């Protein structure tokens, strides 16, 4: 059967942008297909901005933003969101920190009130700080210390690839650093980074634009104006010699390895960056992808392999420096060197021989499905548009991503593959300390 090319569809989510006098940028994207709304506030501060000696602080501070604010006691935020039928959370990334709610549409004003109140200032107390240090330590135990492959590779690979503290350090934080955190540190961090001029508010879903605009003005208009801090340059030179480290994971039953290569600047060179996002999928998306076919099914040298751009798999939410990652779990006694050699060989083959008929088009069609599916949740749109506004001033890019991905050419994918050379590679190997 001839491989017919699927037409890649697009969404047409409308976008309204404006900026309040205090510098808060706002994005509205109405969609009345379901009576629900998404509200997201994104601050332009993340793991990379943590001071030395305060690893994990951006994430700890995210927890403190839920501990009460000017007009809200501790626990009030949770109760007001959930008591309106909604859900909430927050998360800390390398370049930003987000706070968000999904709610029935009748809770719009309440959600705006809650976000504005903590933007004016959280209640930072010794008691809440100690409580949340304990909670964060349990979070780290669940996700890193008490399980196999904890932090692999998002915490264990950056220190191999990068040399400077902002890019290399453990974003979850050491227990020592977390325990040393003070209320004064938190107040400083808030003053510096949680400024109205450093934030974006996005509201999506079942809203009337005029009404939402009025309510946003009412609740956020008198948040004191503070400018965004200057964002440092976190750039680092590319690798010129291969780097590789290994560690023993006492709980891991099988070996694993992850490799990363630097990619072009996602913001200033988006056109140069996109082919790498596509390349990761060509290599690893499903049983018909090159590396799965070769390593999993033909050679049987790995049990699973995945590829993605961004250490958190967030290709459209990161700034430079970032990387394309390939991570594999191996069968018992598996040979990591052989796996890395085979990956090199396949990358060479792709760069030299190009793609097979239909290979790129089908990968792009599948990527379109993933991109569209992510935007179906009202919150997915609010979050993504907020970050696109913050990092690019271009929230409407969300509508264009499936098409732009579809326009990446075979030549661009080949050229991208050609840059993934061993001497530019940083790898981290997990030695199975729990093998039986």
């Amino acid at each position: 059967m001839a491989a017919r090319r699927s037409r890649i569809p697009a969404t047409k989510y409308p976008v309204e942008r404006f900026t309040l006098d205090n510098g808060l940028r706002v994005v509205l994207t109405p969609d009345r297909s379901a009576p629900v709304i998404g509200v997201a506030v994104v601050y332009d501060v993340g793991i990379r901005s943590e001071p030395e000696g305060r690893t994990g602080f951006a994430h700890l501070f995210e927890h403190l933003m839920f501990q009460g604010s000017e007009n809200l006691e501790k626990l009030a935020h949770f109760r007001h969101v959930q008591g309106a039928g909604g859900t909430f959370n927050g998360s800390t990334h390398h370049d930003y920190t987000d706070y968000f709610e999904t709610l029935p549409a009748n809770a719009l004003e309440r959600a705006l009130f809650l976000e504005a109140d903590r933007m004016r200032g959280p209640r930072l107390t010794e008691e809440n700080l100690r409580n949340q240090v304990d909670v964060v330590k349990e979070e780290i135990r669940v996700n890193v210390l008490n399980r196999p492959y904890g932090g692999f590779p998002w915490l264990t690979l950056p220190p191999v690839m990068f040399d400077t503290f902002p890019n290399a350090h453990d974003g979850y934080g050491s227990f020592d650093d977390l325990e040393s955190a003070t209320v004064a540190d938190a107040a400083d961090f808030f003053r510096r980074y949680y400024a109205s001029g450093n934030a974006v508010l996005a509201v999506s879903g079942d809203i009337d634009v005029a009404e939402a605009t009025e309510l946003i003005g009412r609740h956020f208009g008198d948040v004191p104006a503070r400018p965004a801090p200057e964002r440092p340059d976190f750039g680092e030179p590319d690798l010129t010699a291969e780097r590789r480290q290994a560690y023993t994971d006492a709980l891991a039953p099988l070996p694993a390895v992850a490799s990363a290569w630097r990619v072009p600047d996602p913001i200033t060179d988006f056109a140069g960056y996109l082919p790498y996002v596509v390349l990761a999928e060509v290599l690893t998306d499903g049983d018909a992808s090159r590396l799965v076919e070769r390593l999993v099914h033909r050679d049987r040298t790995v049990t699973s392999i995945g590829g993605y751009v961004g250490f958190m798999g967030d290709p459209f939410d990161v700034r430079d420096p970032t990387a394309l990652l390939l991570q594999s779990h191996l069968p018992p006694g598996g040979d990591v060197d052989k796996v890395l050699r085979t990956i090199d060989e396949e990358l060479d083959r792709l760069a030299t021989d190009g793609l097979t008929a239909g290979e790129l088009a089908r990968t792009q069609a599948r990527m379109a499905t993933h991109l569209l599916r992510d935007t179906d949740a009202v919150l997915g749109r609010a979050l993504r548009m907020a970050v696109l506004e913050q990092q690019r001033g271009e929230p409407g890019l969300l509508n264009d991503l499936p098409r732009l991905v579809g326009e990446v050419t075979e030549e661009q994918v080949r050229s991208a593959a050609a840059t993934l050379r061993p001497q530019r590679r940083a790898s981290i190997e997990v030695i199975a300390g729990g093998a039986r």
Partner: protein
Amino acid sequence: MSVTAPPSPRPLPPLGPNRRLKLPKQAERTLANGLTVIAVRRPAIPLVEVRLWMPAGRTHLARGALLAQTMLSGTQTMTSVQIAAELQAVGGGLSAGIDPDRLMLSGAGLVTGLDRMLEILAEVLTGAAYPGKEVGTERDRLVDRIQVAQSQPAHLARTALLKRIYGRHPYAVQTPEPEQVRAVGPAVLRRLHAERVHPADAVLVLVGDVQPERALDAAEKALGAWTGAGHTAELPPAPPLEPGPLLLVDRPGSVQSSLRVALPAVPRTHPDHAALQLANLVFGGYFSSRWVENIREDKGYTYGPHSLVEHSVAGSVLVAAAEVATEVTAPALLETMYELGRLATLPPKPDELEQARQYALGTLQLGMSTQAGLASLVSAYAGNGLRLDFLAEHAARLAKATADDVAEAAQRYLAPAQAVTVVLGDAERVAPALSALVPVRTEPVGTE
């Protein structure tokens, strides 16, 4: 610095009027071969979600697991790579999974590719070949995956809890041992496929940017020729919980303890279900619950405690789960028993109940607001003999449950006297304090 007056408090804005729960447009048809097809319209994005639910009660554990792992590994006319590539070409994908209730094929793709996805689905259902080489590869992968699962504390705690709750019922063991998987070959899989993969009692759900009647036509065209009259095994009802000593599963060196408390529950259609759901929310079923506010926000013992009513075909159970620091394992259990006992013996406050009720009603709306959420909901309902209309019924029951109803349900279902408790952790460090609270029986991890 000048002294300024404290800002006057700002009032919390009230909620707007509640929007009525509106069910999407849908259609249903039972094909001549016995397959039920349900199509639901949600046109927000140009995609379609596919869920095929096939009853799988009493399927041999290791064979069932490997069947799901290899179902998409090739047919008479297509290799595994061709299947994956053809699905990708229409932006699609399929995956197979099995549990003690059902075998499920699920996926999503561009709506323009619906016909092609259904054709490939039919090809797999009628012609899955279980080629020897692929079965060998997937068998090794499954064994590797089981070994990784067996190193995860959450999996080990779940395994111990299921065995403790279900005894000799088929739900008691849900993950095969590696050696059982190694014994399964292609011929056995082909036979199992012939026996258990058939359209009678199966339900196909399609949700997305479709006209429901036309989607039913497409399903009929692609899957009408799927035949086969294998058997369907009835699951016996799940046994009642048998309270007893706390089961402490020893995992030396563990820096946290996995605390699991099982309590009785009722199916979705039971008259007590809405009140039980509300009681569970007040106890520990959402963040703003007594248990979470106590052991996380007050005491800092844990990160993500949660409590959930789990529905299966043969019965329902309520499970409260928390990963707590090793040194506070016993105090965490004490607070858990305290919060259960408090709710089982004293009625909830009116504002607590209203908050839980709003949450339950609101999250119904949220769950229906995506194609994927709607598809999973419709499929889970259909697998248990319900239709989407049930959502409106359930919402009405949630809306009218009284404080007395909830107090009664709490006494009946949340009483700590009926709890079955399992803790996975470092026994040497946690046993002495736990034994000060309740009788404890200790087992090594992975005991048969």
